[in-house]
């Protein structure tokens, strides 16, 4: 986390705020609720209290404006800059401005006002931007549900104001997964146009042959329409498409764009309704088959005919001897299958039908 220079903060823990105007995108009551809930996030973990004024000057003046809106710090139209706020202090200090050219929502359909307000009010209380992609104070917008403060955010604000005297217990948002955690497991792995994409929690790592360090990013920052939790993924490079599985739905990505008509139900592939989740998926380019792993079984899907092969499901143990009986994620490179289960990675020779190497899962992340 970071503070502003000189660790600017409110000297009085009882801070006032006023909502000067409202966006037409939402009902007034929704805006009031979003702002109040956003303030509660910070008062939950500090001694701060927030009193609403309906006229006159408050410490934190909240308003919606477009382009040049009176502070010589113009907004830029839709997307790009969403909002900004000023560090604690007199006059414009603490003031919080939202770009009216954005579309504001109370869900994930557009920019979620509560999430942006919680971030901006963090600035109005003295927090600057965090480099932790899992922190609320990270500068890039990403939609998430649940309590928005991570451990990093809580440590930062309590360094300024101390903890909540009533010791309210809050469950911080989980931090970004650590790639060198020896017990690291993966949710899903896929190729994407020559890169390897590894999904874990709300994040993904991107491995590029020329990039020494894997780059960690929030899933929602790149693909706002797919869920924060990916179960399985595979690339069909012949069709230049990546299929992402989450629960009983699947999404198709062409590069970074969502293919029209998705999401679809996984049962469209020919899976029985009792299958509620796919644990891992991998496309075997040499055979044109896609293997779908669910619990101890797996299925073979023929991409050319878009049908499930007969004689399935078969058990993983039976056809992939030496492997675990379940799979978290799977990838295929040059005749070798890579199975990931918990913190172990199995390199499996598809031709000689046996495990040829066992590694730690995160060895693929240069750990």
């Amino acid at each position, binding site marked *: 986390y970071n503070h*502003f220079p000189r660790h600017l903060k409110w000297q009085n823990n009882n801070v006032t705020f006023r909502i000067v105007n409202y966006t037409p995108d939402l009902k007034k009551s929704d805006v009031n609720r979003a702002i109040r809930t956003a303030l509660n996030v910070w008062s939950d973990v500090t001694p701060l209290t927030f009193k609403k004024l309906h006229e006159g000057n408050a410490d934190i003046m909240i308003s919606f404006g477009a382009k040049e809106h009176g502070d010589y710090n113009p*907004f830029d139209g839709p*997307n790009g*800059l969403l*909002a*900004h706020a000023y560090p604690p202090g007199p006059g414009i200090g603490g003031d919080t401005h939202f770009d009216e050219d954005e579309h504001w929502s109370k869900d994930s359909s557009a920019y979620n006002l509560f999430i942006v307000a919680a971030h901006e009010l963090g600035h109005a209380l003295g927090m600057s*931007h965090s480099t932790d992609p899992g922190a609320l104070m990270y*500068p890039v917008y990403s939609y998430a549900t649940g309590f928005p403060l991570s451990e990093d955010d809580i440590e930062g604000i309590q360094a300024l104001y101390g903890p909540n005297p009533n010791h309210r217990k809050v469950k911080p948002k989980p931090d970004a997964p650590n790639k060198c955690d020896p017990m690291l497991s993966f949710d899903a792995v896929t190729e994407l146009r020559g890169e390897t994409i590894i999904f874990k929690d709300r994040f993904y790592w991107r491995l590029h042959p020329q990039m020494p360090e894997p780059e960690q990013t929030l899933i929602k*920052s790149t693909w706002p329409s797919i869920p924060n939790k990916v179960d399985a993924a595979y690339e069909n490079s012949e069709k230049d498409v990546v299929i992402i599985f989450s629960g009983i739905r699947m999404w198709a990505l062409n590069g970074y764009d969502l293919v029209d008509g998705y999401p679809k139900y996984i049962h469209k592939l020919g899976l029985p309704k009792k299958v509620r989740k796919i644990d891992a998926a991998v496309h075997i380019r040499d055979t044109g088959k896609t293997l779908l792993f669910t619990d101890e079984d797996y299925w073979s899907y023929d991409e050319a005919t878009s049908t499930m092969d007969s004689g399935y499901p078969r058990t993983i143990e039976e056809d992939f001897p030496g492997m675990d009986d379940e799979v978290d994620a799977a990838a295929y490179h040059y005749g070798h299958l890579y199975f990931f289960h918990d913190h172990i990675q199995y390199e499996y020779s598809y031709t000689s039908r046996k495990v040829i190497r066992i590694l730690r899962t995160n060895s693929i992340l240069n750990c």
Partner: protein
Amino acid sequence: FALPLPSEDNNRLLAEKYLRRFYDLPAALQGKSSGTFETKIKAMQRFFNLKVSGNLDDNTLEVMKLARCGVPDIGE
């Protein structure tokens, strides 16, 4: 009519605007010196845990285009 700038120049303009707003790149003239520009690019790449090359590569440009907060990432 002003000819549409080749994408190279567009990217450079986008980057300069981004770095001026969020990384304190000095205004137009001085900022043209590649040394300052490269230094600011590295600061931004370091902040976002990208490969610190000083070059305006695709990953860096991609992050610059993401919706974000208007408060600078460094300095006053």
